[in-house]
């Protein structure tokens, strides 16, 4: 039996998000025979919908001026009105998907499989999927009973995007069905988006970044990293725990919830390498990881690894660079 799969499309300013083609790839991997429908929710979504008809046989549109900003409390109610129970719904695992999806699985009475990074086939109504735990330190295989429907969130970047084909799809307006009992989700009201604070250094423009994570240990140790950055002619950036500890300004955070950087050289010092952090590094820089834990996930993605305590290694490196100059 082929599954009915829906993929929720993220879009902004009339442009489809990169994850849409990844969701299409995930759907094809899950069940090549499935009929896949894209769902677009928003305001003035016609350009988005028509651009998707090249990749999807059917595009469902839920369009209303009140949907200009994606409020997941509203959208969950709309989706529950139109998606038949028993369907499989694929959603990108980002700040919106995490907000929308667990509750949607309850509304649709299906299984919930969060943050999948791979699919390995279906055995007897159960999807075998790959997830990660402990910030990516270990992977797991999970079985998810999808026979009664499921909501599955997919980690962005984990499926290779499917090139737009010539699906010749059609757009179906589902706005009436979705809004059949008025606009849902009124108990949470969107107010505004506050833009990221501007810091003293714009790390998105840095060619050399010396980035620190939890492994720095103490706030006082940041000084040795400042010295290294100075010697290399680069800037200091960091991963999330440093921001949480308020040791550096938020504007220096690299990651999906921070800045997206594209340096030529990226030094990851005491950074374990969570996907949220790696998601903020683009342009395939030359990446050096220094970490005393040889099993840190960062060593899987870095070009060069140094298994040492950064507190010892960094001052030595700085001294040698300064001597050389």
């Amino acid at each position, binding site marked *: 039996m082929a599954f009915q799969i829906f993929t929720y499309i993220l879009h902004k300013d009339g442009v489809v998000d990169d994850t849409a083609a990844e969701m299409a790839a995930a759907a094809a991997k899950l069940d090549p025979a499935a009929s896949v429908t894209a769902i677009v929710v928003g305001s003035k979504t016609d350009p988005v919908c028509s651009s998707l008809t090249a990749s999807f046989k059917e595009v469902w549109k839920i369009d209303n001026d009140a949907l200009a900003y994606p*409020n997941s409390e509203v959208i969950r109610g709309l989706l529950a009105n139109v998606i038949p129970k028993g369907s499989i719904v694929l959603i990108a695992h980002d*700040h*919106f998907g*995490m*907000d929308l999806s*667990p*509750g949607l699985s*309850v509304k649709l009475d299906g*299984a*919930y499989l*969060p943050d999948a990074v791979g699919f390995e086939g279906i055995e007897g109504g159960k999807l075998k999927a790959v997830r990660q*735990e*402990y910030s*990516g*330190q*270990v992977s*797991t*295989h*999970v079985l998810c*009973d999808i026979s009664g429907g*499921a909501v599955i969130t997919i980690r962005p970047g984990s499926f290779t995007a499917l090139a737009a084909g010539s699906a010749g799809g059609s757009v179906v307006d589902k706005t009436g069905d979705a809004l059949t009992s008025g606009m849902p989700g009124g*108990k*949470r*009201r969107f*107010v505004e*988006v*506050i*833009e*990221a*604070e501007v810091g003293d250094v714009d790390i998105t423009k840095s*060619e*050399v970044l010396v980035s620190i994570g939890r492994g720095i240990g103490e706030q006082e140790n940041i000084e040795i990293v400042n010295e290294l950055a100075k*010697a*290399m*002619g680069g800037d200091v950036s960091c991963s*999330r*725990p440093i*921001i*949480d500890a*308020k040791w550096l300004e*938020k504007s220096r955070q690299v990651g999906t*919830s921070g800045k997206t950087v594209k340096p*030529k050289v990226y*030094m990851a010092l005491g950074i374990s390498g969570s996907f949220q952090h790696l998601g903020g590094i683009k342009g395939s820089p*030359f990446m*050096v990881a220094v970490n005393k834990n*040889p*099993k840190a996930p960062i*060593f*899987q*993605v*870095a070009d*060069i*690894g*140094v298994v040492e305590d950064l507190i*010892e*290694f960094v001052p030595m*490196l700085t001294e040698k*660079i300064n001597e*050389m100059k």
Partner: protein
Amino acid sequence: MDILVCVKRVPDTAENEISVNGSGTDIERDDLVYSVNEWDNYAVEEAIQIRDKVGGSVTVISVGDSESEEVLRREMAMGADKGILISDGAFEGSDGKGLAVILKTAIEKDKYDLIFTGAQADDGAGQVGGMLAAMLDLPYASLVNFIEVSDDKKIKIGREIAGGQQEIDEIDLPCVLSIQTGINEPRYVGIRGIRKVASVEIPVLGASDLGIDQGLVGSAAAKVSRVDYFMPALGKGAEILEGSIEEKADKLIELLKSKGGIK
């Protein structure tokens, strides 16, 4: 404001290197240091700060075995007023939805204005809060990194979204919020604080105390189950520099020079 915070006892990843055991059935649990889930600790701190500002109470609740009691006690030492441990062999093997059903049943026994969970825990799923809200038919917001209590009907919240931006919403009470790290600076808990609450009684509730439908919880009801653990292979893997620490530094400098890393 009566606030409930759901907390979980997890291996402390700041203290441990997590690896897979020989047979791949579990992580290596020998010598692991356990602690309260980091996100939950921020949630408890936030709850305490709100209570101290506007009055009310903070209750911490955990589903787990008897060892989860130490985590509840730790959070009570921080300042939570009450702890509840939910423990029953029948709950073993529950998936996220099973856990949400258990918590929902416990929550319905009392009245809370705010229910917090951490934004995620050790398994990175981030699912229980959103499910709980849907089951209780309450509004929900995830990744909350700012809370301002405006009145007793609604509050103002900030959510961490992409690229350092923050989404501001207004949300009616009661509601369920998942709390992101960095929302506050959790207070330090000393050994004296723990001693103070060492003899406070923490009620333990099982399936029959809660009157829970056992068909909805435990491994039999779970639609999602873990098969095995393995070490991830994300990329081709780094070239690991060998030699003494000095030799490693020298090799690295040569590499950095060739890649434009030293200006």
